[in-house]
C-alpha cells in the first residue's frame, strides 16, 4: 500500500458529522450493514457450489456506496464494475433478483444472462455493469451527455477502482466530461490494489484526486471508510453536477478485506501483507458508523439489533428466492442477442 503523506483536500470529519442529521446517519448505517450482510451471506452459501458466478466482494468498502447513493434519485444513473454488489444495493436494487442472478435463474435481474459482474436495474438508474476495467467510465459520461442534451437534471456516477485510473478511458472520459461540463461524478474507490498489483507498482505518484486539476475539475480525497466524509464530498459533487456546474473526481481511500475474487481472504496466499490487512480491519466502516450512531445517540443498541434481525431476514429471503427460482429454459440462450422493438 502506498503511504499518503501529502493530502489533496480532506473533508473535516467534525463538521461533516455535525451537519448530518440522525435520520440520515441511521439510513447510512442501514445501507452499510445491508451491504455487509449481503456479502457475508454470499460467503456463507458459496461453498454450496451452486452459486456459479465469480463474486467480487466489497467487504470493507461499504461506506462509499452508501455515502454516495444516498444523494441520488431513482432517475440518476450509476455505472459500476465487477465489484458492484454494494452499489446496486445502495441504489435500491431488489436483493432477491440480485441473488437470483447469481444463482443463474430466470428471475435474476439480468435473467441469468449476466451474473454477478453484470447487474442491472434500469428502473433504478442502473443500466448495466461492466467487468472490463475502465469500461464503464465513458458510458457514465455518455449518460451524462444524454441528460445534458435532454435538458434534465439527472446526474451520472461512474464507480471505478484505482486500477481503472491506469486505463485510457479514464483520461478520455475526464477530458470530455470537463470539456462539456457534464453532470458526472467520477468516483474512484482506491483500495490500493488492481487484482494483486499494488498501486505503487502501477502509478508513479499517489495522487489520484490531484489528477482532476489537469482536467480543470475539482478533485477531492476522502477517507472512504468514514461514511460522513464520503457523504459530504459526494453531496458537494452531486449538487454541483445537478446545478450544471460540471463533473468532479472523488477519491475514496479504502481496502477490500477479501481477495480480488471469491469468498476467501488472499492474505494467506501472500497476496497482501498481513499487517496492512489487519490495520485496515480496525477501520471497519460498519463498526465506525455504529460507534458514531451510539456516540451521537442516533440509534440504540436495541434498535441496532432489531435492524440486524430485519436485514438477516432479508438475506435469507433473497437466497431462498434465488435458490427456489426456475432456471431459464435452454432455448433462452438465443434470446436477447438483438433488440427487436426498434423505431
Amino acid at each position, binding site marked *: 500500500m502506498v503511504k499518503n503523506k501529502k493530502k489533496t483536500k480532506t473533508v473535516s470529519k467534525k463538521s461533516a458529522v455535525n451537519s448530518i442529521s440522525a435520520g440520515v446517519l441511521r439510513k447510512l448505517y442501514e445501507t452499510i450493514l445491508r451491504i455487509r450482510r449481503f456479502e457475508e451471506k454470499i460467503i456463507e452459501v458459496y461453498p454450496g457450489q451452486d452459486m456459479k458466478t465469480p463474486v467480487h466482494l466489497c467487504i470493507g468498502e461499504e461506506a462509499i456506496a452508501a455515502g454516495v447513493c444516498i444523494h441520488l434519485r431513482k432517475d440518476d444513473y450509476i455505472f459500476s464494475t465487477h465489484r458492484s454488489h454494494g452499489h446496486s444495493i445502495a441504489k435500491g436494487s431488489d436483493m432477491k433478483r440480485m441473488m437470483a442472478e447469481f444463482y443463474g435463474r430466470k428471475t435474476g*435481474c439480468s435473467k441469468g*444472462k449476466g451474473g454477478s459482474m453484470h447487474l*442491472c436495474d434500469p428502473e433504478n438508474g442502473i443500466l448495466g455493469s*461492466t467487468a472490463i476495467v475502465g*469500461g464503464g467510465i465513458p458510458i457514465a459520461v*455518455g449518460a451524462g451527455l444524454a441528460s445534458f*442534451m435532454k435538458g434534465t437534471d439527472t446526474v451520472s456516477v461512474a464507480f471505478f477502482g484505482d486500477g481503472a485510473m491506469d486505463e485510457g478511458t479514464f483520461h*478520455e472520459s475526464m477530458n470530455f466530461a470537463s470539456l462539456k461540463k457534464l453532470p458526472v461524478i467520477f468516483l474512484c474507490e482506491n483500495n490500493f490494489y488492481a487484482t494483486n498489483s499494488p498501486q505503487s507498482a502501477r502509478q508513479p505518484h499517489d495522487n489520484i484526486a490531484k489528477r482532476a486539476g489537469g482536467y480543470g475539475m475539482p478533485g477531492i480525497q476522502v477517507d472512504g471508510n468514514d461514511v460522513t466524509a464520503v457523504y459530504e464530498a459526494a453531496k458537494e459533487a452531486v449538487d454541483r453536477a445537478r446545478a450544471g456546474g460540471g463533473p468532479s473526481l472523488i477519491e475514496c481511500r479504502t481496502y477490500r478485506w477479501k481477495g480480488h475474487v471469491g469468498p476467501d481472504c488472499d492474505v494467506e496466499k501472500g497476496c497482501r501483507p498481513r499487517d496492512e490487512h489487519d490495520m485496515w480491519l480496525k477501520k471497519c466502516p460498519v463498526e465506525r458508523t455504529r460507534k458514531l450512531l451510539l456516540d451521537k445517540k442516533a440509534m440504540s443498541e436495541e434498535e441496532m439489533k432489531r435492524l440486524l434481525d430485519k436485514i438477516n431476514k432479508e438475506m435469507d429471503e433473497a437466497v431462498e428466492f434465488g435458490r427456489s427460482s426456475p432456471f431459464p429454459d435452454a432455448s433462452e440462450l438465443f434470446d436477447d442477442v*438483438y433488440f427487436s422493438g426498434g423505431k
Partner: protein
Amino acid sequence: MPWTKVYVDKSEFEKAAQLQKEGLRGLTFREALKEATSQMMEKDERVFVMGEGVDDPGGIFGSTAGLHKKFGKNRVMDLPIAENGMTGVAIGAAMAGMRPIFVHMRMDFLPMCMDQIVNHAAKWYYMTGGRTNVPLVVRSIIGKGWGSAAQHSQALQALFMHIPGLKVVMPSTPYDVKGLMVSSIQDGNPVMFIEHRWLYEQIGYVPEEIYTVPIGKGIVRRQGKDVTVVAVSNMVYEAMKAVQPLEAEGIDVEVIDPRTIKPLDEDIIIESIKKTGRLVIVDIGWKTCGVSAEIAAVVAEKAFKYLKAPVKRVTLPDVPTPNSPVLEDAYYFDYKRIVSSVKEMFREI
C-alpha cells in the same frame, strides 16, 4: 425499378432520368447519406451526430457538411480524438435515450474502439437480459488509392461480422444508403455502417421522403442464369461492369448485393445458386476469415449439392495496403479480375 438499379456512371443515370422525365430525382451517395441524417435529425430530436471533424468545412467528405449550421454544434458535435472513450460516451448516451451517429472518417480508427464496440455495445443487451438496448450507429469510411497505405484504407468489416450483437451494413447505392441509414437509426441495436469512399460520387434515384431499406435483406442487381456473383459495397459496380464482357463470352451473370453482411441474407444467395450452380464472391477486404470466407462456408454447408464448380473468391491479397502506385495496382483489382475469375471457373470445368 429505379430504386433497385445500379447506375454504373453518371451518363447512365442521366439517360434513365431523361426517359422517365419526372419522378427520378438523382442524388449522389454523399447527398443521400446527408439527407437521411438531416431528415432523421429533424424528425427525431434524439438523433445527433458526433465525430472528429463532423462540423469542419469538409464535413466528412461532404456527408455531414453544413449540418451544424442547421442543427447547432451540440447535435453535430466535434470530438476529441479519443476513439474508444468517445465510443463509450456514444454508448452511454444511446442507453440513456439518445440516438447517436458516431462518424469515423477512416475505418482504420475503429480498432481503437474495439473494447467499447465488442465488449460493451455488442454485449450489453444480452448481458442485461434484454433490459437495456444500445441504439447506436457507427459510421466508418474505407479509403482507397493515392497512397493511402496501410492505416488509411482498411476494410475491416469481417472483424465486426464475427461479433454477435452487432449488425453490419454496407450499402452500395444512393437509394440504399439513405434507406439503410434510416433503418439503422431506428433499429435499436449497435449498427456498424460501412461506406466505401469511392461510392460517394455514385449517382442514383433517391426519393425525397423518408423511407427504409430493411437490414438483413440482399437484392438481385441483375438476373442471370449461369453464375452468381455476390459483390459487397463498391464491388457491386465492378460486378456490374463485368456483366457485358462476360455476356460477350456467352456467360449470363446474376449479381447479388447483400447490402447487409450481418445478418446475412443467406436465402437470396442460396436461391440464386440453386439456379446457377456457380458462385463467385467479390469482397473489398482480405481473404482469410473474410466476408468471402463466411459466405463460402454458408454455401458449403447449405447449398453444396447445387454447386457445379468450386466456389471462387475475388478479394484483396493478405497483405497490408502498400503506398507506391505500382504496388497499389498489384494490390487492388477491378471488374477485369472478376471477368477473368468467372472465365477461369468455366474453363476449369
